């Protein structure tokens, strides 16, 4: 049974994919487990999403600053995460190939200031769909890959290099080969840009063959998916798999199908960074419980402006 979960509620579920949701100001408090006497073996990572470097337009007149504000906010955490993952749309799309490379270089220069020891990248359709991921691979490496960290297997799926939002059978075969060595109870985290399930196909919030990935992943009992694309926090379950969308770092979008058109939430000068933020994910010593904490950029410090291009 699929169950949407509201935000700002505390829910603890048995088994992996069990989460505690929390919200707060960036830097105002730290990870719940760390605050409440977590074990030394706990660790956490941070998800940043949809930074759209190069965007310029009314939905975020401060777009030239927002990425730097996010870097400062993450650096201000009392402890640094083991790693940071960017779940796509690092840059805003452009038809100009030279400009695309320029934006990717600028993005890398800004995030180079992150204190966390490791950053993991993956593309969104804005990064990869116009050239099938060519520029992204040149600057950031493979668009799908896996890695292990402290007892958890992480798999990064690319559902954007195909401009029609398909993962493709070749990548699905790779995923199966990557996972089949793991036991059915192994904790698995999947990073992807678009939702794997049909969140709102009417707004293009889906993956063409996402159901194939979900069918495959359901052979393992402890799978959690983190994604971006929809520019808002969202929680959903397909069977045993938990799916968590992150806020963006450029402009928020409305709740799925809550209005006729998928257009950005209007910028509010009284709350210029409302709806922007990032996520801390803590993993307990059992590796079977994740704690999610949503951090807002509201209240984060200001930085010096810099040039940005592009438009919505």
């Amino acid at each position, binding site marked *: 049974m699929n169950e*949407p979960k509201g935000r700002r509620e505390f829910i603890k579920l048995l088994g992996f994919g069990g989460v505690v949701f929390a919200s707060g100001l960036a830097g105002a408090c730290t990870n719940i487990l760390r605050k409440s006497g977590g074990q030394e073996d706990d660790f956490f990572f941070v998800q940043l999403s949809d930074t759209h470097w190069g965007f310029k337009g009314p939905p975020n007149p401060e777009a030239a600053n927002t990425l730097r504000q996010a870097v400062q906010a993450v650096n201000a955490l009392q402890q640094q995460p083991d790693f940071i993952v960017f779940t796509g749309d690092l840059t*805003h*799309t*452009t*038809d100009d190939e030279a400009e695309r490379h320029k934006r990717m270089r600028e993005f890398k220069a800004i995030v180079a200031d992150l204190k966390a020891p490791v950053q993991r990248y993956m593309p969104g*359709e804005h990064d990869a*769909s*116009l050239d099938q991921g060519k520029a992204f691979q040149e600057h950031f490496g493979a668009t799908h890959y896996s890695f292990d960290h402290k007892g958890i297997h992480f798999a990064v799926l690319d559902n*954007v290099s195909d*401009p*029609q*939002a398909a993962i493709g059978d070749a990548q699905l075969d790779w995923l199966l080969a990557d996972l089949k060595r793991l036991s059915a109870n192994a904790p698995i985290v999947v990073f992807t840009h678009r939702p794997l399930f049909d*969140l*709102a*196909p*009417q*707004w*293009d919030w889906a993956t063409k063959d996402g159901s194939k990935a979900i069918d495959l992943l359901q052979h393992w009992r402890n799978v959690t998916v983190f994604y971006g694309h929809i520019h808002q926090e969202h929680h959903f379950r397909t069977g045993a798999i938990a799916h968590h969308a992150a806020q963006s770092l450029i402009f928020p979008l409305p*709740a*799925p*199908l*809550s*209005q*006729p*058109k*998928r*257009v950005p939430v209007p910028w509010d000068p009284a709350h210029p960074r409302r709806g922007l933020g990032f996520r801390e994910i803590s993993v307990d010593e059992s590796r079977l419980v994740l704690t999610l904490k949503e951090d807002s950029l509201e209240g984060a410090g200001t930085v010096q402006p810099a040039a940005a291009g*592009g*438009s*919505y």
Partner: protein
Amino acid sequence: MRGLHWILGASLAAILAAASSEVAAQEKVIQVTAEKFKFTPAVIELKLGEPVVLELTTLDRKHGFQVPDLNVDENIEPGKVTRVRIVPAKVGTFLFHCDVFCGSGHEEMAGEIVVKP
């Protein structure tokens, strides 16, 4: 899922088929052009039960024409005409969009089919 109240009749609202090149003489044909980043017309008005064939063409590059609530998912290739036959079976408003990422503004490339009694 929230906010679906303005879409009347979300599923199986029409009997659809990617039409063959043969179009019955009595069926209405509506030309729809796609270009970065819009469809023309963006609002397609149909009458309940009246068959229609949409003739989709592109003025620039490859685009998509997806109407999830009507199970329509077609590509629009340069130099080709894509025909979609619709027999509206339910009154309502059904969103369509380009599902082939085509650049900055792609997200705005959308429209709606409005089926009236």
